[in-house]
């Protein structure tokens, strides 16, 4: 994987300063430490920081076509590139490398934007036509890899991470109040926006095109759509299981393509245990695995992890995530993640990718996405229970099913009534598009009480739910309620948080590439036609996936209750001697950033000091405030870093003064 960046003139040819490109590749060097390359003409500068995985010696970028009219910089992997390459060779295309990058370029020559339909992978790339001056940028279907851009003074500046854009931008970085409002509602931004003013994210499944004769346009090429069709209606459970099994196997097979060894994350949960077992059985008996253990017992999954390591007999390494480390690295993970986070859970994944890299690995498979695609999360089951309740909102018996879902929190009989009322929100509106998420999102709104008056004023009467409503698919209202919940979870939490803050960013921080077999678009599209009642059978989550792995995994793994992956917040930040929260969140600091109310933050800190434990909401507020303050310090309160004098591109193609 890699980092890409560059600058495009939108109106007239104008000199592009190569040192700006250097600043950008340098800011992205964690994404691509192996080599750098750039192409410059009078309209565009394209740059790349490379992490070499396929065609180690020949794949240096930028890469060109036969007559050097098209140039590409690429971040990611196209897993079906050998097959596409074969068909392009038959059409007469000539290749000078064996890389997947070159395959995209020639496929683009053939099919223009339709090339995206053929690509199976995770990617963000830019193609420049030096003759027609057409600029084309695209991002993979669900946003496994990032792409940001900013329009500034007749220029488009783009990069894999916002920090590279901030490096060369003329205006001072600022928080986007609307962006913050979204993050403290959905845990992430809605597609298109970021936490930074004027820095946009190219939404997953979209491309951007521009030429001097046509205005800049952003268009979708793929979108998630659910429908139970007649074909799947007539299928039996064994049919589904067989077909899913074939798809997962093939997805893993092509995701093992690399010129460096591929390892695997192994958490002890169903998803990563399943993929690891598949790899071991069908593809690579000598598999290297990596996992996290926690100091705090309630977060730890060692028991299941050890069971799997023993069963599969893999060469395993683990990192032990201590509360002290989670606190210690939190500032770093905010630097790499570039977004406020209301969880500490990315921190252990940062430690894990560090371990992977230390052990000499650059690529790992992970189980991300299975919960969204196969129906694993509690929020889906909660939706089913609330839907069951909504049939008769006055029923005294129906809401008792919530106890099955959350036995721990319903343990206290005195609280049972209050909790029931909590989940009753919106129960009379089962057709509300946000029926599934209304309880969670409404609860998050309380986080915004910590915002400063000034920020609240800037946000004004903006309503994030209205914006989300506007981007829902046209036939959304007709979908099954579980489909709706899956869709909402995928476009918010999965793309914006799981694959980004907790995924790509935490891995690339240590120059490690994640590959996510469950998010092969063939699997996503197939599962979008499977009737919801088979995905979660009763309240049995990921029912079909469990059946797929039934013969490969022990019953302790397939039948175990699902634990959400989390990391401790209060004990990492408050009870951590090496984490000076009083200084980080001092009145002076809070005032400087201007995002939060000084007195409320102070009261939260006092409460955290006083109480043994904090509520879920208080924990989220604490992580959200801390990460926002760190973000401020990294990007808004800081001078640009200077790059070493001897920092030069390994490949530099200079076509300036030739293309006017």
């Amino acid at each position, binding site marked *: 994987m890699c980092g890409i960046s560059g600058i495009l003139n939108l109106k007239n040819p104008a000199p592009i300063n190569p040192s700006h490109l250097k600043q950008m590749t340098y800011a992205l060097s964690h994404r691509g430490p192996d080599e750098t390359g750039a192409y410059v003409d009078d309209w565009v500068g394209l740059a790349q920081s490379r992490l070499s995985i396929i065609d180690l010696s020949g794949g240096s970028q930028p890469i060109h076509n036969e007559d050097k009219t098209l140039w590409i910089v690429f971040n990611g992997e196209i897993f079906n590139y050998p097959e596409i390459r074969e068909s392009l060779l038959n059409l007469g295309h000539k290749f000078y490398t064996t890389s997947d990058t070159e395959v995209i370029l020639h496929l683009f020559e053939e099919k223009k934007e339709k090339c995206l339909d053929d690509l199976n992978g995770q990617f963000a790339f830019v193609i420049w036509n030096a003759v027609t001056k057409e600029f084309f940028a695209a991002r993979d279907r669900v946003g496994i890899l990032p792409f940001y851009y900013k329009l500034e003074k007749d220029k488009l500046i783009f990069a894999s991470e916002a920090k590279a854009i901030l490096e060369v931008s003329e205006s001072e970085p600022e928080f986007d109040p609307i962006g913050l409002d979204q993050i403290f509602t959905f845990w992430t931004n809605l597609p298109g926006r970021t936490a930074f003013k004027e820095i946009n994210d190219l939404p997953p499944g979209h491309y951007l095109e521009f030429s001097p004769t046509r205005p800049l346009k952003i268009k979708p090429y793929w979108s998630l759509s659910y429908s139970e069709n007649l074909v799947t209606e007539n299928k039996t459970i064994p049919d589904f299981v067989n077909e899913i099994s074939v798809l997962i196997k093939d997805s893993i097979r092509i995701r093992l393509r690399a010129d460096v060894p591929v390892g695997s994350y192994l958490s002890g949960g169903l998803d990563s245990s399943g993929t690891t077992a598949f790899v071991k059985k069908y593809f690579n008996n000598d598999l290297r695995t990596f996992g996290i253990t926690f100091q705090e017992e309630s977060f730890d999954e060692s028991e299941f992890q050890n069971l799997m390591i023993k069963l599969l007999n893999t060469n395993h390494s683990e990192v032990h995530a201590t509360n002290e480390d989670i606190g210690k690295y939190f500032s770093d993970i905010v630097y790499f993640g570039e977004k406020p986070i209301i969880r500490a859970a990315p921190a252990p994944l940062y430690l894990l990718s560090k371990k992977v890299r230390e052990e000499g690995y650059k690529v790992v498979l992970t189980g991300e996405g299975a919960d969204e695609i196969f129906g694993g999360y509690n929020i889906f089951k909660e939706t*089913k*229970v609330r839907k*069951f309740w909504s*049939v*008769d909102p006055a029923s005294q018996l*129906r809401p008792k*099913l919530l106890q099955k879902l959350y036995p721990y929190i319903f343990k206290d009989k005195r609280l049972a009534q209050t909790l029931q009322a909590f989940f009753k929100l919106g129960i009379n509106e089962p057709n509300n598009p946000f029926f599934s998420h209304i309880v969670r999102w409404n609860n998050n709104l309380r986080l915004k009480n910590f915002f400063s008056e000034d920020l609240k004023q800037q946000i004004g009467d903006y309503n994030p739910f209205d914006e989300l409503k506007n981007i829902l698919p046209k036939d959304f209202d007709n979908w099954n309620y579980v489909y709706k919940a899956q869709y909402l979870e995928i476009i918010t939490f999965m793309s914006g948080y799981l694959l980004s803050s907790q995924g790509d960013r935490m891995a690339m921080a240590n120059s490690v590439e994640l590959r996510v077999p469950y998010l092969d678009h063939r699997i996503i599209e197939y599962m979008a036609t499977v009737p919801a*009642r088979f995905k979660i059978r*009763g309240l*049995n989550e990921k029912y079909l996936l469990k059946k797929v792995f039934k013969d490969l995994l022990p019953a302790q793994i397939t039948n175990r209750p699902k634990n959400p992956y989390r990391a401790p917040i209060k004990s990492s930040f408050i009870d951590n001697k090496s984490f000076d929260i009083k200084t980080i969140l001092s009145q002076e600091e809070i005032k400087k950033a201007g995002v939060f109310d000084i007195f409320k933050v102070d009261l939260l800190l006092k409460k955290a000091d006083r109480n043994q434990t904090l509520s879920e909401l208080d924990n989220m507020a604490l992580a959200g405030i801390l990460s926002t303050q760190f973000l401020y310090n990294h990007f808004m309160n800081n001078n640009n870093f200077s790059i070493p004098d001897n920092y030069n591109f390994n490949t530099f193609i200079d076509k300036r003064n030739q293309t006017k």
Partner: protein
Amino acid sequence: MNKINFSNESVKQFIVDNFLFGDADKLAVDTHLFEKGIIDSTGVLELVAFIEENFNVTVSDDELVQDNFSSLIAIEKFLQSKNNQAS
């Protein structure tokens, strides 16, 4: 052995998967689901939720009594009576 057939294979499979964790031997068509400890009070709600989702019926609080869900046969009878009501 009871000779009455139980036609809703998916209800049976659901109980086997969900409450017996695969132990199909323990479930005959007349096995008492409550007396044998197969289903408890929360479990019956799970079962009813499943039935509503898969058989297009709605169960009222009044019908949510053990008798209607005490065995596979009882469930079959209950579903038949719901169907008769509907038609």
